[in-house]
């Protein structure tokens, strides 16, 4: 691409002025985007007495974090959320990679029926099946258990991820699998040893997204769990009403909940950007 472009705006300005304006605009955009998170971090570092005037005063303390981490229920919620997110990611990928592969490599009534089913269930709002799922999980003895939360979390990603996986496999040339089959490879061999390795970047991208979605999910945890399996999002939402006036603790909890997602996204960013070409 040629480097000289006709500017859309401010064509009358000298180049250096346009550069400065561009940098300024970039800085403003980044600031606005990051501001809520920065403000949250700042609030979490303020002492109880200074929390109502976050923007004034210069005292900073880690006391809120210490206090929050002494809360047993919260620590338990962190562990639960991490556990469920990780397990849900592993099983979701196992289930949806194969289903997406089927959608991509086979045409015909079976494939299009499955695709139609997936699309329809993707449209169904969560609330429409989570309300009755509350009953189902109670009568199956799954209410307020790890399994009762894990399985719906796997199920919810089936539709979207199968669809994305289909797109990824569509972008991978099947002729290698052809060749493998002709050389006497089984279908499973062609899938697992030929197609799967080339889909690794896409699978990594889905893994990152799945973990984030599960870590951030709220409605399932709210409806399908009681006191035994607290999840971080629900505990936080309860805090808003219970500790309505203690914003420093609230902010500290939220910052702690952001950290794992942040780290994962930072390291996974490159896979997500590379993997999400639909």
């Amino acid at each position, binding site marked *: 691409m*040629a480097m000289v472009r006709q*500017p*859309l705006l401010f064509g009358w300005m000298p180049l250096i002025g346009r550069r400065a304006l561009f940098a300024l605009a970039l800085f403003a*955009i980044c600031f606005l*985007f*990051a501001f*809520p998170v920065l*403000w*949250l971090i700042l609030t979490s570092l303020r002492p109880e007495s200074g929390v*109502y*005037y976050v923007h004034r005063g210069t005292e900073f303390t880690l006391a809120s974090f210490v206090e929050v981490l002494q809360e047993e229920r919260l620590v338990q919620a962190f562990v639960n959320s991490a556990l469920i997110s990780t397990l849900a990611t592993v099983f979701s990928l*196992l*289930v949806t990679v*194969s*289903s997406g592969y*089927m959608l991509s*490599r*086979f*045409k*015909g009534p*079976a*494939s299009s029926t*499955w695709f139609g*089913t997936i699309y*329809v*269930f*993707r*449209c*169904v709002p969560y*609330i*429409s*099946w*989570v*309300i*009755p799922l509350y009953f*189902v999980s109670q009568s199956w003895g799954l209410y307020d258990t790890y399994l009762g939360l894990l*399985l719906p979390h796997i199920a*919810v990603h089936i539709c*979207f991820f199968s669809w994305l996986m289909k797109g990824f496999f*569509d972008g991978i040339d099947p002729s290698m*699998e052809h060749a493998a089959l002709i050389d006497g490879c089984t279908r499973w061999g062609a*899938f697992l040893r030929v197609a799967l390795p080339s889909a690794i970047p896409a699978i990594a991208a889905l893994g990152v997204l799945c973990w*984030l979605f599960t870590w*951030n999910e*709220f*409605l399932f945890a709210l*409806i399908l769990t009681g006191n035994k399996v607290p999840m971080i*999002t629900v505990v936080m*939402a309860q805090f*808003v009403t219970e500790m309505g006036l203690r914003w420093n603790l*609230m902010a500290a909890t*939220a910052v702690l*909940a*952001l950290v794992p*997602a942040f780290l994962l996204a*930072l390291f996974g*960013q490159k896979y997500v*950007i590379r993997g*999400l070409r*639909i």
Partner: protein
Amino acid sequence: MAVGRRPIFGEQQRFMLFLIAPAALLLLLFQVVPIAIGANASFRDWALYNPKKIWVGLAHYEAVLTDPAFLEVVLPNTFLFMVVSVFGALVVGLSLALLLNRPFWGQRLVQTILLVPLMVAPVIAAIMMRWMFNDQFGIVNAVLEGLGLEGQPWLVQRWTAFGVILLTDIWLWTPWFTLLLLAGLQSLPKEPFEAAEIDGTSTWRVFTHLTLPMLQPVIVVCVVIRAIDAFRTFDIVWTLTGGGPGRSTELFSLYAYVLAFLNLDLGRGSAAAIVGGLIILVVGIGMYRLVDRVTKS
């Protein structure tokens, strides 16, 4: 789309079945069965505290469909929310994708910062906004008053509360659009743009006549995915306003939740959930037709 993709394995039903069996089984157990049970409950007198389970026919549906709160507040809110939040996130996301689609110093850092909201749980985002828009101690009012303007009790007035909800949602989902549209932009062929440059076409015309039409399939797919998700938004409204003031910012998911778990009327809640499900299904299938037409033409 690759050309000439035909079934490469021929008929191999068993292999196909094995590939989708786990997914299909989970889907059956955790979506199909609950929906069937919910449909059954929606025809019965099924209060959580006293499940008589007597058949009442369409009474719950009638109650939902004649409820002024549902018709005059919840449905308009839901559709308004869907349109504005998707359109807002699309416009901002597309602008940012265009910005990031050219090299400049610090591009990767800017990209990382712009993707921050993707990592933030909706509940956390709602808590942040609630704090920032707090009428007494929030930074927004502090800044407004510093500028000599009047602070607003943001979350206790209907339209300002709705605005804050929209703002939160757009902030949360813009990176999603940026990410997908940027990937789309980067996979566009270079030749037409080079040709336009040689011809001296203005940047605006390149955008409207080249970029936008070529990007259209990706845009449509993004919009459809997001619109369907926006319809079921629950967590940010629940945490920001709880549907208030009064019930004026309730969206569909919240309406069904309140009926089922706060009013403890599972029958009516299920009926509301099914009505909403049917509405979005019609919208969703209509949008699928649109995608089909756009991607094929």
